[in-house]
């Protein structure tokens, strides 16, 4: 990779990842180990899945770590990425106020829960930003046969953190990855729906296609190998926040 050509320093590996891996503190916990082992400095760009894939497609990142399988497959099929590997997973949950205006506490079918939210016209906050979480939310609405709109549906086009903050402020429901939710201790929101198979949240890593862009292929390959190595996978499983594990690697990939 030419330092002058693309304005990046040759030593820095640019990883475009999702806000969930960043906000949950996972990357900060495991990355120093990689940087020390390989003498590579990592620039972490924390954005939504859609934006991360676009950064990769434009050659503005060397590696993408995202969570929207269909988009990942499309990214690979269009020749933007190579060497896709499954990394880890956690799950999405629907959080809401303890008053539970839509009466969905304990519901196990996520689509049914959304139907009840829509019927009750209970406030719902959506990422609305083409992120992995937003893509999953839209798939669930589709499964429920609902096109969400109305005063109760708030599409804010912001990150997971902002969405949780505003949902909390408005005592509203939201779809969130469990890791980001657990990391926050300022929220009055509680988990109301969990456990639906459609709420599985799987992460994949891909190298930006070196045939298409001038990327740091060596460091990118090192990173991907390191991320799926037994030692790092063990660290991912061992990472906890407030004593609770956030990600696991036995996802039945």
């Amino acid at each position, binding site marked *: 990779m030419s330092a002058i050509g693309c304005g990046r320093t040759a030593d820095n590996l640019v990883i475009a990842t999702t806000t969930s891996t960043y906000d949950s503190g996972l990357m900060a916990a495991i990355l120093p180990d990689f940087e020390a082992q390989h003498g590579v400095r990592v620039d972490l760009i924390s954005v939504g899945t859609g*934006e991360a894939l676009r950064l990769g497609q434009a050659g503005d990142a060397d590696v993408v770590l995202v969570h929207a399988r269909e988009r990942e497959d499309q990214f690979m099929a269009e020749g933007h990425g190579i060497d896709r590997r499954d990394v880890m997973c956690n799950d999405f949950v629907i959080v809401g106020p303890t008053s539970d205006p839509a009466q969905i506490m304990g519901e196990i079918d996520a689509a049914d829960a959304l139907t009840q939210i829509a019927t009750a016209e209970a406030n719902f906050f959506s990422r609305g930003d083409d992120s992995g979480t937003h893509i999953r939310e839209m798939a669930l609405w589709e499964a429920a046969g609902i096109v969400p709109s109305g005063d109760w549906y*708030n*599409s804010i086009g912001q990150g997971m953190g902002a969405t949780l903050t*505003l949902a909390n*402020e408005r005592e509203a429901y939201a779809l969130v990855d469990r890791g980001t939710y657990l990391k926050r201790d300022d929220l009055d929101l509680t988990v109301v729906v969990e456990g639906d198979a459609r709420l599985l949240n799987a992460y994949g890593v891909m190298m930006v296609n070196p045939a298409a862009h001038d990327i740091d292929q060596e460091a990118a390959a090192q990173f991907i190998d390191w991320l799926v190595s037994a030692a790092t996978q063990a660290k991912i499983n061992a990472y906890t926040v407030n004593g609770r594990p956030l990600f696991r690697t036995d996802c039945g990939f």
Partner: protein
Amino acid sequence: MVEYSAIAEIVGRTLYVSGVAVLIAAVIGIPIGAWLGLRRKKSSRWLSALVYTGMGFPPVVIGLAVYLLLSRQGVFGWLNWLLTPAAMITAQAILAIPLIIGITMSTVRDVDPELHLQLKSLGATNRQIGRTILYEARSGVLLSLVAGFGAAISEVGAVMMVGGNIDGRTRVLTTAIVLETRQGNFDTALTLGVILLLAAFVINLTAVLAQRNV
């Protein structure tokens, strides 16, 4: 990616929010600016320094303050304004007030001091003096409104925080541009950017034309 009607709606909301904000800021800022401009006491320097500091106040700090005041736990939480245009108007008005005060103050100061003495010798009341001097300084006052509007309409951080960029309710041109750019919809982002520039240009042009006529 955004339909024509959605863009029109965003433009309308943008003009409404910033327009109302500047109106409120004018009602508060012009009298204070005129009063400060007419005072010729030593302590005025302190006030001037305060006003000039306010003119450079980071909008994002205004956003934070307004957010905290209007949040559920905040002093004004009962208003239920957070994440509504009212919150955005509040933030933009607070942003514009020091600009309007500052520019009004300095143009009123620049009005010939002789006029002040003449009016006084003619037996004019303080209120009459103020009104006459403000009239003499009218082009500067107009400039203060244009500057306030420009600051308000181009602000992004504070309105994102207190308005929430909610589609169909609190999304304005600046926050829409951020969202569209992030999503890689550069065409839409550019279109919105050009509209924002055009809106600012039309307002400035109107002000310049009005200045020639006053």
